[in-house]
């Protein structure tokens, strides 16, 4: 089980070593110490290994992650798991802006709060936030599920496409073309599925969530909606 101290080993060396791993590697569990808020830690992983990071990370941790499991025991900076393709990223602390931005697959779990623009432009990633999310979350969200146990800030789902937003707490305001929608059994099942994958085991009742999504009025330009563009 390789253990790397970022106070000693340059980040470039660590990332290069991680990129050299093959799917058949024996080094399946890495521990990274003293990240001290550095950027791009474990970015571009593409093998099904586990990386455990002890401490707070800077921007773009686990950026473009594919197949890997990244556990961040601390808080994460801007763009954690940005453009993730697959795999699992778990932040035990808070996440800064643009968490899961443009993510195309995989699962991002944040135990603390996520700041503004959580799930911006998401394209298939699933995001679970135990705390609350900040303003402009799910901006232009195209696909995937955002599940928030706490509250959502202003302009949730502004200019949203087909992503599904589930919020248990209050929503400060909804963005352009984002509306509350009916919660049906299929949606509760979807929440349950995402939560199970994220490691929850019945602690949370899917029926406590409200669903938000696109009213689809902006799909074809019409002058009467000009102000919403």
């Amino acid at each position, binding site marked *: 089980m390789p253990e790397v101290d970022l106070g000693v080993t340059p980040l470039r060396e660590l990332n290069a070593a991680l990129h050299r791993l093959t799917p058949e590697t024996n080094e399946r569990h890495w521990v990274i110490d003293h990240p*001290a*808020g*550095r950027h791009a830690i474990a970015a571009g992983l593409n093998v099904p290994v586990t990386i455990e990071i002890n401490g*707070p990370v*800077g*921007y773009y941790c686990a950026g473009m992650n594919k197949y890997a499991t990244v556990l961040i025991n601390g*808080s994460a*900076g*801007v763009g954690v798991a940005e453009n993730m393709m697959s795999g699992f990223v778990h932040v035990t*602390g*808070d996440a*800064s*802006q643009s968490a899961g931005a443009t993510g195309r697959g995989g699962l991002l779990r944040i135990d603390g*709060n996520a*700041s*503004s623009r959580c799930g911006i432009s998401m394209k298939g990633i699933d995001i679970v936030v135990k705390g609350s999310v*900040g*303003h*402009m979350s799910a901006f232009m969200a195209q696909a995937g599920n955002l599940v928030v146990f706490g509250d959502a*800030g202003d302009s949730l789902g502004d200019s949203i496409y087909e992503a599904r937003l589930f919020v248990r707490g209050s929503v400060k305001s909804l963005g352009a073309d984002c509306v509350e929608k009916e919660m049906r059994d299929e949606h509760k099942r979807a929440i349950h599925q995402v939560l199970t994958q994220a490691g929850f085991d019945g602690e949370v009742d899917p029926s406590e969530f409200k669903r938000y999504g696109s009213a689809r009025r902006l799909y074809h330009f019409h002058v009467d909606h000009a102000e919403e563009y």
Partner: protein
Amino acid sequence: MCGIVGLFLKDPALEPELGRLTAGMLATMSDRGPDSAGFAVYAAGQPGQTKLTVRSTSPLAAEELSVAVEAAFSGVQTVLHDTHVVISIPDQEIEALIKWLEREVPEAEIVGRGTRMEIFKEVGLPSSVAQRFGLATMSGTHAIGHTRMATESAVTTDGAHPYSTGTDQCLVHNGSLSNHNNLRRELKREGLHFETENDTEVAAGYLTWRMREGLSLGDALKVGLDDLDGFYTFVVGTENGFGVLRDGIACKPAVMAETDQYVAFGSEYRVLATLPGIEHARVWEPEPATVYFWER
């Protein structure tokens, strides 16, 4: 584009460490701003005395200025810091000193004025700027600092932050205003003077003007949200504390940390990583369009 740091000490026992901690924070922000750096330290003041921080064109010129001031005014104390001189003078003589400086040393610039505030800023990498001024040895109750990557104006000391907005007040900024040229013209008509084309200087002037018209700093920042257009994170230093404001869109980064000993601000978490007790601090990001203040 830039890096901002701020440190407000709740625990007096940390006051001798203020400079050292701030210097560490500033050095981390080099990447965001390699062009120039500056900081304001709120050190001990003396009742009845005002401190003026004056920036000269060279360390030699600063020395000469210091000698000349001491000769011209009795009861004055000067402390040399590289190109800057901190002049401490009885309150009743401050106007005379300012007039004297304008007449005798017009090329020198008054960068700060107050009971406790001292401002230092120069072109160069943040760590060398901090070293030149001996930041690591300074003590005080709070400090704000800035590292600059010049966007639309030139890389000169004139463009460096903090900008003073009034007695014991100063401003640092990360972001880019979009209507500062119009605002500058309006403020000039109101009698304010500007030395640079810099947008932050306009923001500082705007706040000064609003307070001159009777608003508190907090209210000036609030109405600033409507009048100042663009992207900004502001950190302002006041005699007793510091304030933080992000614009309504809040794209530019801002991270804060609080413990029993301090409240700290950084453009990135990395800035805060070396502070004592950071592992147990409450860390959060300020909300957009919300004025925050910490004061003793």
